[in-house]
């Protein structure tokens, strides 16, 4: 109960600060405030789910569900506000798409909770929602008019279908995770999963490592609120001294549990596993440290660049994906700790594994036709806007790959009778591809689909 009180108090405190902001700006229902409220409630829900993990008090889950409701209401208001302000549904930029995505995810979480009785699904979906809202704070959020290519009814059809499909995929991912827990998958297998995920994040982050411990981030043009470009598609990087060393240290820390796990397997010594679990704890502390230092150094200060003379400012807004990666890594490890400490409670609260397996399949049965229609609507629109229904643009190609992965899942399940674990792995893989299509393609691969 103490936690509920604490979370309640901090929510009240944060809302009070928001209230002061409101008084200062004189505008209650601005979108930023609504979004901030949504973030507060989602974070409260996330904290309660984690609190349940630490203490095992079941009533926390009920309060977490309430907080999710409150967050969804604030989120709905933010969506409505945006829609009203912009005069079109919020689908036109990555910011607006995230707004809709988080909304759909929260709504589906509540559906899964109420309709299917998967009470702790929020432990997985709420962190995703929080990362989404945090990302939104950094992306360009001003209402921009629609460029000619986006002035089409098909924009709304295409993107609505995409959001529904992606949220259904996210839900199937969360359900597949729950299934693996209920299916008595060994806790250390989850350790391997989260460790590989985190090591992947830090390996990607370290691609910005610059000799002598520097760390490269994109320079930010404060006046124009955009990244600094040297030429078309060539961004200017600035080097933050010494931050690279810290990232390298954290990389070693997140790789430690994985190494210890492999040692335990090779030497067949279970003792290493206990150390690995402790190493996860240490790595969470170090990751938090990295996050704090990253935020502090990137927010303030001007740094030199290798490609241009002088000092340039940078901003968190210039590195949204690094930030999201760092936050995502911490969440993944916290979820692992939750599982490590509260496995029995989780198992008691979840529907049985057969049920979870079936709900996962049902969710994909909803996601797959939506994906199909989303691609078809996109093709029809592309035919009107670009002159061809299929251009092999990276976004299109990856959407087709997503479709193929889920088609593979359905074939294996229906004709080969794949149930249980293998189907769950497939659902997890499918969601990974979805996330890559959504974010990865936009930021890594250039193409026609440049709006989002």
């Amino acid at each position, binding site marked *: 109960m103490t936690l509920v009180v604490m979370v309640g108090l901090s929510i009240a405190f944060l809302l009070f600060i928001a209230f002061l902001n409101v008084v200062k700006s004189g505008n209650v229902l601005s979108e930023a405030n609504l979004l901030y409220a949504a973030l507060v409630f989602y974070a409260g829900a996330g904290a309660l789910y984690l609190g349940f993990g630490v203490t095992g008090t079941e009533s926390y889950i009920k309060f977490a569900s309430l907080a999710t409701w409150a967050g969804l209401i604030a989120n709905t208001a933010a969506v409505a506000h945006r829609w009203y302000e912009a005069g079109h549904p919020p689908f036109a930029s990555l910011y607006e798409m995230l707004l809709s995505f988080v909304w759909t995810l929260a709504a589906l979480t509540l559906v899964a909770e109420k309709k299917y009785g998967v009470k702790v699904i929020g432990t997985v979906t709420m962190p995703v929602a929080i990362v989404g809202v945090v990302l939104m704070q950094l992306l360009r959020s001003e209402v921009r008019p629609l460029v000619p290519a986006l002035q089409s009814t098909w924009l709304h059809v295409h993107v609505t279908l995409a959001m529904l499909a992606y949220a259904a995929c996210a839900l199937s991912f969360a359900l597949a995770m729950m299934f693996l827990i209920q299916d008595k998958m060994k806790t250390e297998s989850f350790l391997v999963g989260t460790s590989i995920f985190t090591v992947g994040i830090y390996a990607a982050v370290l691609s910005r490592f610059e000799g002598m411990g520097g760390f490269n981030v994109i320079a930010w043009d404060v006046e124009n609120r955009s990244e600094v470009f040297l030429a078309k598609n060539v961004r200017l990087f600035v080097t933050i001294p010494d931050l690279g060393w810290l990232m390298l240290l954290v990389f070693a820390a997140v790789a430690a549990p994985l190494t210890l796990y492999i040692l335990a397997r090779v030497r067949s010594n279970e003792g290493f596993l206990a150390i690995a679990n402790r190493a996860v704890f240490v790595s969470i502390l170090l990751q938090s440290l990295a996050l704090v230092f990253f935020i502090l150094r990137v927010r303030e200060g001007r740094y030199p660049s290798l490609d241009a003379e002088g000092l340039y400012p940078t901003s968190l807004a210039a590195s949204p994906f690094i930030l999201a990666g760092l936050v995502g890594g911490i969440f993944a490890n916290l979820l692992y700790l939750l599982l490590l400490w509260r496995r029995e409670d989780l198992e008691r609260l979840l529907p049985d594994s057969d049920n979870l397996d079936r709900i996962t399949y049902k969710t994909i049965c909803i996601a797959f036709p939506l994906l199909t229609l989303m691609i078809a609507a996109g093709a029809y629109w592309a035919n009107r806007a670009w002159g061809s229904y299929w251009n092999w643009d990276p976004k299109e190609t990856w959407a087709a790959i997503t479709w193929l992965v889920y088609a593979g899942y359905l074939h294996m399940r229906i004709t080969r009778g794949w149930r249980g674990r293998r189907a769950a792995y497939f659902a997890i893989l499918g969601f990974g591809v979805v996330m890559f299509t959504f974010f990865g393609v936009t930021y890594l691969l250039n*193409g026609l689909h440049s709006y989002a």
Partner: protein
Amino acid sequence: MALSLHSAARTVWKTFGSIKTGVVLIILVVIFSAAGTVILQRPMTDPDDMARAYSPAMLRFLDVTKLTDVYHAPWFVALMILVSFSIIAASVERFPNAWRYFARPYKSPDEGFRKVLPVQAHVKITDEEQGLGAAECAFRKMHLKSERIVRPDRFSLFAERNRISEMAVYIVHASLLLIFLGGIIDALYGWRGFLMLSPGTAGNQIELKTGNARTLPFAIRCDGAGEETYNDGTPKKYWSKLAVVDNGQEVSRKEIVVNDPLVYQGVRFYQASYGRTGKLDSITLEVSPKDKPGAAQQITLSPNQIVSLDADTKVQLAEFIPDYTVQDGHVYARSNDVVNPAVHLIVTSAKELKAINVWFPEIPGVAENASSPYNFQPKDLKTAVFTGLEVSHEPGQWAVWAGVVLMAIGLTFVFYVVHVRYWVVPVQDAGGNLALWIGGSANRNRDAFEQSFKRYVEEVEKELKSKFVEAAEKPAASLPKTTAGR
């Protein structure tokens, strides 16, 4: 020999029809199409960018293996053909069975089937006819049409719903083939290209993506083009007024914008780009004679146009250079962007019989502005615009759209339409007691079906009860065989 050849073909066919081959092919398509999004692709990427991104040896390797144009590489096309072949083989292999199932439904369950069917129930009855009647009533209540199946010794009942659902997978596979077919038709007979027009001009020469040209049997005339921007400068609308001229006659007219193309004889014209050509449309000048500064007049000149300023002085617009640079006493154009324009006028005087070169701006060494009898003051500069039209001919797209619609229908059937079957057979147990054996099956969503099966059985029991009451109220004559209810 012939036999082994036949069996080899049979093996190949079987291999292609197997789900394993299908999944392996899906994985290959995934890998190669992903590769195409990571490796820079021709012809979209600038050759210089490619040379910068890869070492010469690497680039040669990528070019030879066609990895720089994955989606048009012969091996990728071959892979897609294999995928189609696999879908056909898998469907043909399984279709006869499914068709038999579909065309000749299993209506009269034998004893073996009755034993193993997972969803079944027994309901005690006292009379066969009464029991079947109750079962029929219950079917009607669930909006199912039942039929009486004549068995050698007695009747039984069969009811079903949505048998078409058994065919759904084939509908989806056929739709995929239809989409592929559309793609193949477009790859063979379709083309894409570009047509650039300035307002007032017409054209029928399409510059194809392949680098060749194509002459249309009709011409497109541009009657105007323009752009609108929002207050912050971002583009809001690009438009072109187009007219189709066929055999010298204007047959169609449309203002196209992005997202709304003009279609004529299966050829589509899309608004793709808009810009300035770097050529001059007209320039407005204020002209005043040097000896009489007060008498200024405004003239508008188009390229090569000659205008008389007085009885014996004429001015001609000789050159317009959108982005000029001077080297060795000559003026050159650096680019076609109107960023640093220069205008060259030639002033001729009948009296002096010589041409004076007037330049704006006054370029030292070339301009003779001082010796001109008139002063010129440029007021307005209008450069010509062009509209870039993307032109495409896709005869296969109708197959694609038909395939998409068919797939939507097929997927709806696959996921949401359940083939439900019920059988009702009167049986006698070892003790000689009469009972109704009720069995049911559904091809998907079995837990929901189990609920409705349970409801059906309850309905039958309720009907039996009310029938029993009816029977008890009426004299035994109407139902002679009824023994007193236990």
